[in-house]
């Protein structure tokens, strides 16, 4: 796998991953009109402000959808396959959707939770660990209720 890339080196994306390292889920928000936007970018498409901040979110969301990839895959992912990749919509703004893995516990195998345990709309909560490539990311555990 190409090891040279880290989104923490890109000033546009780094705040998300730096927050994850501190155990926080933060999303870019316009400081002028207040709307959240994702993925991050310099300009607010609604008010054209170039000022933004990274707003802390509750870390609660729902499964919008998910796929279960099978090989052929890159070797590090093939070892875990089949695994679930989910798209999570955040409780604060369901139009903010994050791709992520559903795990049993922090840094658990991405293949540990079988797809039969997942349904669209099910609640999930962010925990914070490391991606397969080793940078800090939110991971998702099924909510209790």
């Amino acid at each position, binding site marked *: *796998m*190409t*090891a*040279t*890339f880290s*989104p923490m080196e*890109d000033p546009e*994306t780094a705040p998300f991953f730096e927050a994850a390292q501190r155990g926080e889920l933060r999303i870019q928000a316009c400081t002028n009109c207040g709307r959240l936007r*994702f*993925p991050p970018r310099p300009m607010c*498409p609604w008010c054209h402000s170039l000022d933004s901040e990274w707003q802390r979110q509750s870390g609660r969301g729902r499964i*919008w*959808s*998910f*796929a*279960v*990839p*099978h090989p*052929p*895959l*890159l070797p590090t*992912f093939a070892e*875990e396959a*089949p*695994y679930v*990749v989910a*798209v999570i919509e955040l409780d604060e703004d369901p*139009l*903010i*959707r*994050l*791709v*992520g*893995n559903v795990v049993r516990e922090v840094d658990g195998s*991405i293949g540990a939770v079988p*797809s039969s345990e997942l349904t*669209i709309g099910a609640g999930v909560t962010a925990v914070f660990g490391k*991606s*397969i*490539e080793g*940078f800090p*990311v939110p991971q998702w555990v099924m909510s209790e209720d």
Partner: protein
Amino acid sequence: MGGVRLGFTTAIVGIGQSEFSKHLEPTEEELAVRAILAALEDAGIEASEVDALSSFTMEATEEVAVAKNLGLGDITFFSKIGYGGGGGCGTIGHLSLAIAGGVSHVGVAWRSRKRGSGVRPWAAGPGGLRIPGSEQVTAATWARPFGLLRPVDEIAVLTRRYMHETGATREHLAEVAMSIRANANRNPAAMMHDRSMSLDDYMNARWISEPLCLFDNCLETDGALAVVVTSTERAKDCRRAPVFVDSFAQAIPQQHHHMVNFWAEDPIGAPARACAAALWRQSELRPEDIDVVQIYDAFTPLVLISLENYGFCGRGEAPGFVEGGAIRYGGKLPVNTSGGGLSEAYVHGMNLITEGVKQMRGESTSQVVDATACLVTSGEGVPTSALILRSEEC
């Protein structure tokens, strides 16, 4: 003010193609220029008369290479369209606009690709796909690190959501795969000409990315195709009867994000809905006037989604629409009559355009009787394009 309509200013007068195979010996460059030469011979137009070129940003054979090999004239218009398979119909549209605007006279669109024997683009790894400043950063940062690696994984997420919203089942996806396979079985040029597909074959196929199995995926093909476009005036002196470009549209809908599109407000509706709105504004035809369609079928669910987005049925109604055999050859709206990307060849949809031309010429191996209007679409889920082709001048 209705604005200027493209309608019937230009026509497709020549098409050419290579063999389609998992592995072809010639280089992409050689395949490209052979297909273009075949298209020019089909049209009866000399290479020296060509003065416009259009292709995909992903096309490796550049304009200068095409012009030098074929001995083209001075090229006065050239364009390349991004976003992979979304560009196909756009190439014909760009050439048509250049010709309608008087900038050029004879245009060639082409795509040559050894995707069958070459490298799988995603195999470069999550970091390897990161091209600074490009939209690829989005996928490389926000999707691939979590194992959403291949186009099929991205479409699998959309498909599960689509099934959740509409009640579509794997049987509906199978109906798409089997209808299109049956067309390939009638087309000797199709890679899957000799292989039939039953519902059992489909249901027992291995998973690629649940809920999508092997037969929900397009083929991996080495091949090249080319199309010659000129003015309707010049078309009168060509060897073949012209196929008229009725209308053309492209679309990048609001807040769209390339193929990994979970961040748009309506990931399933966009972007073909925006393209369809622009297309139907251009054309005097309505969906019910279309006799046959060639829908971009990199994956089976895209056919269902496109049927809705282009207005052949309502939102969420495609599963019911296909249940009665409507998209089969002989049905109300035959789809992908050559076998499409799923069963003829996957060359970024250029074979859908040439099949649309064959239908309008009355030469398809699954010819729809008395067909006079054909919709052709390009990639669903990416910034896209579409064309309406007609056999008769209105």
